[in-house]
């Protein structure tokens, strides 16, 4: 057999590995910080950049796109070269990919801390960064596909299929969900509104979990687990079925994030059905991973790499069982908006993504530095403190989630709610404290790992270019007998990519398009009017500060919620909401009816409450927002905002952009005057808090008017 010399690029793998550990530490430290802020609400010291609602998106983005993102690239760049028996297509593209990705991360951290955000979860980055992400993704795509095309191994291994599916689907999700019209360099409105925005967002959000946190990591599992165990994957047949069923089913499941909301029911049901079906491929993957170790379980006791991987795959199995269960409407009624969801995602993030990354790092670093791990006992310590950390994190969050749900829904024999929202939230403080201890344990483990890996690298010598000899690929290929359609596909990466794309597009189209084109899916409500200019500005402050991180604006049709908040939310209420602000978590109460009924407070209450929530509502975990009272509202943007809204179909009268600021000032002066009469508060009419108060007082007003009108008609 002829052999050719190949030189694998280890340097790029090393760079991504260093970035993985570095951003892992940063992302998790921010996570610990925000966990502590819920225990000590005044920890932000009145500084916007240190406040929970701005830092939580930094935590999620850092962990997903910086820690896991770099982890994906580390594993892909290592495994792809070996599976294709060739060096990456271009060293230059590899380098460009690496540095541009780090630039995106830095820009993301800076912009989010400054409150530059689109307000859509896990897609918070503003349009210039969105474009940069798209470009970098294309660079990665060219580099990856080019490498696959020039491979010296006829067959494309299943791990690579998962990489290809990741590439095309993330590109599609990112572009569709990021369509927005810029107002300035740092602000844009999404082209979708309300229900449609929610549907697109959670189609994206759910599949970010599927195609950023799951499929690439499954690809890594199919390479690194057999490597670490030194035995082939349990069933290759299963992996083929696993791949196609997983990518086909996953793309449909997004609406399970919107059960009981104003989303049309057929879409909710679609989400539930596909989520339940997802158990099959997910568990197929888990079983395939775990059974790879069949006959080698004795190794798991000795080998810390395998220990991490076994817990990772087990955590994957647990979250992918829990996810479909949470998609059942009766379970979702309990879990949604509570800390249960936080527990669920952290089983996935800490267990599956975290532990698989650590396992790969402990395997990869000694390999590339041609040495053994510096301290096995430190690695074992990391394993145990990490596992303990996950438990101490998750158990209090499950406890807290159930407590919340039970207290929210509890009625007295007289038919009144048993607890105020504040009581349900102060009840959880102990659990929040315990959770931060769990996070601390986990983070200590990561620090120990960083130290151990640095020591390992220091005692070894790094092999930047790994020279190997591989069999040359024969020019002609003799098809084995009986070969037909799928097998040839496995040799044709571009066709394979297209088929994978078709798979995910079909699901996406059937899920999204009807809501956009069939008008009856979103019944209009005549009394729903566009926001006044001041309210619009206030809404943008609401988005900027990340209020949606803790407050929903979606009253579900439950007795307990209608009693607590008022009339349940309707699809037609949100037609002017660019972006929608339904939220996904209630650390604080729902705000959809904040401006009406029993929930309505006067302007001075809001003024004082934003200044010091803990004093106005004793025991509140909300941080103070004193800068809103000092900052002057930037009214120079009003006209541009109105014009973009008009472009998006919001019916402001023609030429309104020119006079909008007059209306804005009129409303602002009124609120400032109210503050003066109510509590003798001296406030500038153009303070940001005035705009925010205007927005909060508007919430729920439209639908309330309609109810009044209907009542009048009946009378």
């Amino acid at each position, binding site marked *: 057999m002829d*052999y050719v010399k190949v030189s694998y690029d280890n340097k790029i793998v090393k760079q991504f590995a260093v970035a993985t550990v570095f951003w892992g530490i940063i992302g998790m430290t921010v996570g610990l910080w925000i966990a502590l802020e819920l225990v000590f609400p005044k920890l932000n010291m009145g500084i916007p950049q240190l406040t929970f609602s701005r830092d939580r998106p930094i935590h999620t983005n850092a962990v997903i796109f910086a820690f896991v993102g770099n982890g994906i690239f580390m594993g892909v760049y290592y*495994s792809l070269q*070996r*599976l294709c*028996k060739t060096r990456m297509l271009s060293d230059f593209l590899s380098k460009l990919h690496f540095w541009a990705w780090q630039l995106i991360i830095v820009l993301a951290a800076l912009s989010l801390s400054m409150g530059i955000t689109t307000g859509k979860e896990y897609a918070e980055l503003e349009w210039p960064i969105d474009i940069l992400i798209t470009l970098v993704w294309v660079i990665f795509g060219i580099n990856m596909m080019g490498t696959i095309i020039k491979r010296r*191994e006829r*067959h494309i*291994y299943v*791990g690579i299929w998962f990489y290809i599916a990741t590439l095309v689907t993330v590109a599609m999700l990112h572009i569709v969900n990021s369509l927005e019209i810029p107002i300035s360099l740092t602000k844009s409105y999404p082209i979708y509104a309300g229900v449609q925005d929610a549907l697109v967002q959670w189609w994206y959000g759910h599949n970010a979990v599927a195609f950023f946190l799951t499929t690439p990591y499954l690809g890594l599992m*199919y*390479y690194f687990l*057999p*490597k670490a165990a*030194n*035995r*082939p*994957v349990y069933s*290759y*047949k299963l992996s*083929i*079925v696993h791949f*196609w*069923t997983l990518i*086909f089913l996953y793309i449909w499941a997004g609406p399970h994030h919107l059960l009981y909301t104003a989303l049309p029911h057929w879409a909710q049901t679609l989400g539930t059905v596909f989520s339940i079906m997802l158990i099959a491929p997910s568990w197929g993957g888990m079983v395939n991973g775990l059974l790879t170790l069949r006959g080698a379980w004795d190794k798991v006791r000795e080998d810390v790499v395998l220990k991490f991987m076994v817990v990772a795959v087990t955590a994957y199995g647990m979250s992918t069982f829990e996810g479909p269960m949470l998609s059942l409407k009766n379970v979702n009624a309990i879990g949604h908006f509570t800390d249960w969801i936080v527990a669920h995602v952290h089983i996935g993030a800490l267990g599956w993504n975290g532990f698989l990354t650590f396992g790969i790092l402990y395997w990869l670093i000694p*390999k590339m530095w*041609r040495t053994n791990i510096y301290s096995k006992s430190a690695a074992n310590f990391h394993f145990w403190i990490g596992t303990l950390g996950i438990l101490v994190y998750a158990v209090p969050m499950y406890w807290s989630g159930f407590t919340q749900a039970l207290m929210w829904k509890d009625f007295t024999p007289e038919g009144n709610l048993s607890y105020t929202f504040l009581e349900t939230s102060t009840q959880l403080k102990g659990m929040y404290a315990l959770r931060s201890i769990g996070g601390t344990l986990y983070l200590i483990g990561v620090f120990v790992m960083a130290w151990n890996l640095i020591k390992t690298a220091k005692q070894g010598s790094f*092999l930047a270019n*790994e020279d*190997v*000899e*591989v*069999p040359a690929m024969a020019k002609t290929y003799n098809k*084995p007998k*009986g070969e*037909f*359609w*799928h*097998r040839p596909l496995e040799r044709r990466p571009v066709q394979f990519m297209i088929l994978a794309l078709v798979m995910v597009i*079909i699901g996406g189209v*059937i899920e999204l*398009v*009807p809501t956009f*084109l*069939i*008008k*009856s899916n979103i019944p209009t409500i005549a009394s729903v009017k566009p926001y006044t200019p001041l309210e619009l500005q206030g809404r943008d402050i609401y988005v900027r500060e990340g209020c949606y991180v803790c407050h929903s604006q979606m009253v579900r049709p439950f007795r307990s919620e209608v009693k607590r908040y008022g009339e349940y939310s309707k699809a037609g209420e949100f037609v002017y909401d660019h972006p929608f602000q339904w939220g996904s978590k209630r650390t604080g109460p729902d705000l959809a009816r904040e401006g009406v009924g029993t929930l309505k407070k006067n302007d001075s209450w809001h003024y004082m409450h934003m200044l010091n929530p803990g004093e106005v509502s004793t025991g509140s975990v909300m941080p103070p927002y004193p800068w809103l009272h000092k900052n002057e509202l930037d009214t120079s943007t009003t006209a541009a905002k109105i014009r973009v809204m008009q472009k998006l179909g919001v019916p402001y009268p023609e030429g309104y952009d020119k006079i909008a600021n007059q209306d804005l000032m009129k409303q602002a002066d009124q609120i400032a005057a109210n503050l003066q009469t109510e509590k003798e508060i001296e406030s500038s009419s153009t303070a940001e808090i005035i705009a925010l108060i205007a927005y909060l007082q508007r919430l729920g007003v439209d639908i309330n008017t309609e109810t009044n009108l209907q009542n009048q008609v009946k009378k």
Partner: protein
Amino acid sequence: MHYLSDIDGVSIYPIISLFIFFVFFIGLFYWVQKMDKSSIDEIRNIPLDNSNPNNLNN
């Protein structure tokens, strides 16, 4: 404004896509069942790659 329902016989499209995917997955399962055992063994050993004893560091 009812774009989708204005298309003549629009309901045929979901049925066609259901059919295509049904056939695809049946074909997939059939093909997987029929796969040649020796070629599977070859494929699943790709990551382990012991084809060249000169490469110590694989």
